């Protein structure tokens, strides 16, 4: 039985942002989505190394999209969560839910 893949906190944030964005997930939109939902803006360097690492682990796949003039004629790299990535994020979130069960945190709906 293969060892389950454990995700870091930032990897989980990035995977969830990609899932929320669907087909429009690429560097800029992922960064904006994380900033909008978590009030923290990741640096591009941190985001791109995380995307690179997750692609190497098989958690996401990427493909080149259209090039636009405001990007200096450079393509966007769209990313998508793979089945392995979906399984890993589901497992990580289930663990969080289990840990949260019975806890009363300030500003949280969990009980």
């Amino acid at each position, binding site marked *: 039985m293969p060892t389950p893949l454990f995700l870091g906190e930032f990897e989980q944030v990035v995977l969830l942002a990609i899932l929320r964005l669907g087909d429009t997930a*690429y*560097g*800029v939109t992922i960064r904006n989505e994380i900033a909008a939902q978590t009030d923290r803006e990741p*640096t*591009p*360097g*941190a985001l*791109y*190394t995380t995307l*690179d*690492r997750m692609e190497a682990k098989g958690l996401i796949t990427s493909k*080149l999209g259209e*090039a*636009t003039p*405001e*990007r*200096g*004629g*450079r*393509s*966007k*790299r769209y990313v998508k969560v793979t089945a392995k990535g979906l399984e890993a994020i589901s497992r990580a979130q289930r663990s969080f839910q289990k840990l949260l069960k019975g806890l009363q945190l300030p500003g949280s709906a969990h009980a």
Partner: protein
Amino acid sequence: MHKSVMAERILTLVMTPERASPIVGDLMEDAPVRGDLWFWANVVRAALAFLWRQFTTNAPNLTALALRGLAFVVVIDSIYNGIGLPWLVKTLFPNGYYYPSAFKLVAMVFVLMAEKLLIPFGVGLWVARRASGRELAACLSLTLAAYAGRLGFVLVWNYCFNFHLPVLELGFPYFLGAAVLAAIIMRRRALPELPSP
């Protein structure tokens, strides 16, 4: 040179052009709002982040390569200092060091600089050729190994003999510069010509 092309050249030192191009595109997209300073700061930060990733994911290989490079540096340096340098000094100053001509002084500076630049450059090329895709990380590892080796040697020497060698010396920037130049040259040779946007 347009800033996007320059940024792409910097990023391709630590990643493939296929990776670098969309990253530069993303930064270009945000640059009109955030400014040039933000653009360049993030080009450098992204390059450093990928460079650090190369170190962390290839640490055993890079360490082994750096130690092999260090062994080469020690051997070549010993030959240079033991045979080459005395022969050159004798040739340039057959009557001793007193009142040398300006030409001979300049020649001596070149001879001394050759040790500081040519040896790390040559060994840097050798190391970079063996670390395809990670040339810069390999040459920086070599520099770190060389200075860790020198520090160890100086500490042992100073402990064993009543003669104190300086712990820090001016050769470090020369070694670093020559090794990084070697990495850049090898990386450029390994890459296909970057397409113009």
